[in-house]
């Protein structure tokens, strides 16, 4: 729970340095490398505000997303390096975390290092929380700490995408339009998101979406042309703190995504969201969760949120995650 409360005190960010565990006796290499235990925590997300595909100035097709970060969701990775031996991961199905550790060690020129990777956290997989990205971000940074190196956000992004093919973008301490299958920043959108109050729900409690098992959405040319407007909209919304516009962009992106990965009860939830005066809804474009976005400066915020809880309950949804950006 410490991590949870710690996370709340961060208004913007993506990751932070958890206590660097002084750990077991340091292992000295002949190259003067000092190995220590590295522990890092990464927040996750609650779906994306926007995800789509545009053509850049050279008319190349670029897939992109803008995450909706959620500090109440986190993953912590501890890496205890050892000389020689294999890389093992706990729990054993966290293969992407294992892969990112391997790639990060290679990045630091230490491909033969082994060790134990332990992944803990509170993120359910397959929902659109970006659990594997969180594991990978924390994993890459834990390795950097363990070997006394450092990584820029861009380098983390590259390593994470290399490890998991498609990743979310909350490894950045700023808002970016992120090419999630390339690991590249397409545009800088601002230093932070405007403040949003969010109610997050799971539209399909039993459903699990494994990103790589789904083919990427095949947008038609009209949608690709239209995404330019959404990108311009999200840029402006962040620059001018225009929550109404941000909500419209997120809703529009969610509507487009209905064609590829429909959320159950989507229209009911949109209607509900309108009745409680949200600025819009955002979905996980590769997952099952949906976020209702509220303007925190609305004087009726708490009344509306209470109403939203009641309305959601009548739809049979009682597991609501409240957070803010």
């Amino acid at each position, binding site marked *: 729970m410490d991590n949870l409360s710690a996370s709340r005190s961060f208004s913007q960010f993506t990751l932070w340095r958890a206590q660097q565990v002084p750990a077991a006796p340091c292992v000295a290499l002949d190259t003067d490398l000092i190995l220590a235990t590295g522990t890092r925590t990464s927040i996750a997300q609650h779906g994306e505000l926007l995800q789509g595909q545009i053509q850049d100035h050279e008319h190349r097709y670029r897939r992109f997303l803008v995450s909706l970060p959620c500090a109440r969701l986190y993953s912590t990775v501890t890496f205890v390096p050892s000389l020689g031996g294999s890389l093992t991961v706990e729990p054993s199905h966290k293969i992407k975390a294992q892969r990112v550790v391997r790639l990060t060690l290679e990045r630091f020129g230490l491909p033969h290092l082994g060790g134990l990777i332990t992944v803990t956290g509170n993120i359910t997989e397959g929902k659109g929380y970006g659990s594997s990205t969180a594991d990978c971000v924390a994993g890459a940074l834990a390795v950097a700490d363990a070997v006394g190196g450092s990584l820029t956000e861009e380098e983390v992004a590259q390593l994470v995408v290399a490890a998991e093919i498609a990743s979310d973008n909350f490894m950045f301490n700023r808002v970016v339009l992120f090419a999630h299958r390339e690991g590249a920043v397409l545009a800088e959108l601002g230093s932070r998101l405007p403040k949003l109050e969010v109610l997050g729900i799971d539209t399909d409690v039993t459903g699990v979406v494994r990103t790589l098992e789904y083919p990427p959405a095949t947008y038609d040319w009209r949608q690709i*042309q*239209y995404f*330019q*407007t*959404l*990108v*311009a909209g999200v840029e402006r919304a962040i620059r*001018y703190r*225009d929550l109404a516009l941000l909500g419209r962009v997120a809703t529009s992106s969610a509507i487009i995504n209905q064609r590829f990965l429909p959320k159950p009860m989507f229209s009911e939830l949109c209607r509900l969201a309108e009745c409680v005066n949200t600025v819009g809804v955002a979905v996980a474009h590769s997952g099952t969760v949906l976020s209702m976005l509220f303007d925190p400066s609305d004087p009726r915020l708490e009344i509306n949120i209470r109403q939203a809880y009641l309305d959601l309950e009548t739809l049979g949804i009682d597991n609501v995650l409240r957070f803010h950006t």
Partner: protein
Amino acid sequence: MGCYQAQLVPLEQNLVAAVFPLMKIYPAEFCLRQAREAGWIESQSLIVESSSGNMAMGLAIVCSLRGYRLVIVSDYACDPMLRRRLEDLGTRVEIVSIPAATGGLQCARLTRLEEIRAQEKDHWWVNQYDNPCNPGAYGSFAAQLVGSLGRVDCLVGTVGSGGSMCGTATYLRNLYPELKVVGVDTFGSVLFGQLDRPRKLRGLGNSIFPKNLDHTVFDEVHWVTAAEAFLATRLLHRKTALFCGPTSGAAWMVASLWARQHASSKVVCIFPDDGYRYVDTVYDDSYLASNDLYLQTLPTAPLEVDDPLAAGPVWSSMQWSRRSFDDVIGSQGKQISQQFSKETYDHGLAPSS
């Protein structure tokens, strides 16, 4: 081609003009780009199109830059200066001078186009009236509007192929469904239920129904006369220093009224081209006088009608209310509108070239 991007010029507190040097470069570029991507054309392909001027110019520029050959079928609206520019860019220009019995010059141009298409084995017809990439081309313009202005409440512009208005409005409405869309047409254009007859105001209106015109996009429709549009264009020049073509004047007179009547709404009007092509006509008093197009003052407001045939003879408007053509006019309407043109032309009212 970045120099052809619209400039957003604030004209009133709640009215912004999107001033294009040559708006048609958007559909020209996008139609050819999509055709290339789909494999319908390649370098050195022959491109053909019918155009009274601006689409021809847009295509000529893009074809010259990307290495396609271009044949344009046009009419008297293609003045010698435009023709020289087109030919300088390597375009072959064919001028049609006799209007068809039904569908006027537009139809005659299309007939000539068909002849050329029959002669040329490998060619690609842009078909701006029916090609969905024409309206589809305005994604980056809609993005520019949202990026610069945020919410837009009303879009005003002239309608010819339906491309710019239907395209821009559709993209914007995905984000702002409540956007009002006001189309500006001219008397004697069939687009919104007038009967076809020769028109002095070109660059808007049509004698045929383009598939790209989606009537259900429009909340309101205005018809303006050539004389009104020309005077408005001159006033626009004097009052704002914007030197534009007559479709801009037509859009401006409607948009400024709309903006005055809706002070809390943010209005955008589209100015599709600059004024150089019209120096010897719109901007020439003796031309206006000798063609009975001289007007001293603009009407302050349109005549409000609820039937397209009740519109005129001066600036008129109608609540279209996002209805289909059939809902407004009846399912026989399209045939009747075009049939009328046959009689008009038979009575020798065809425009001189």
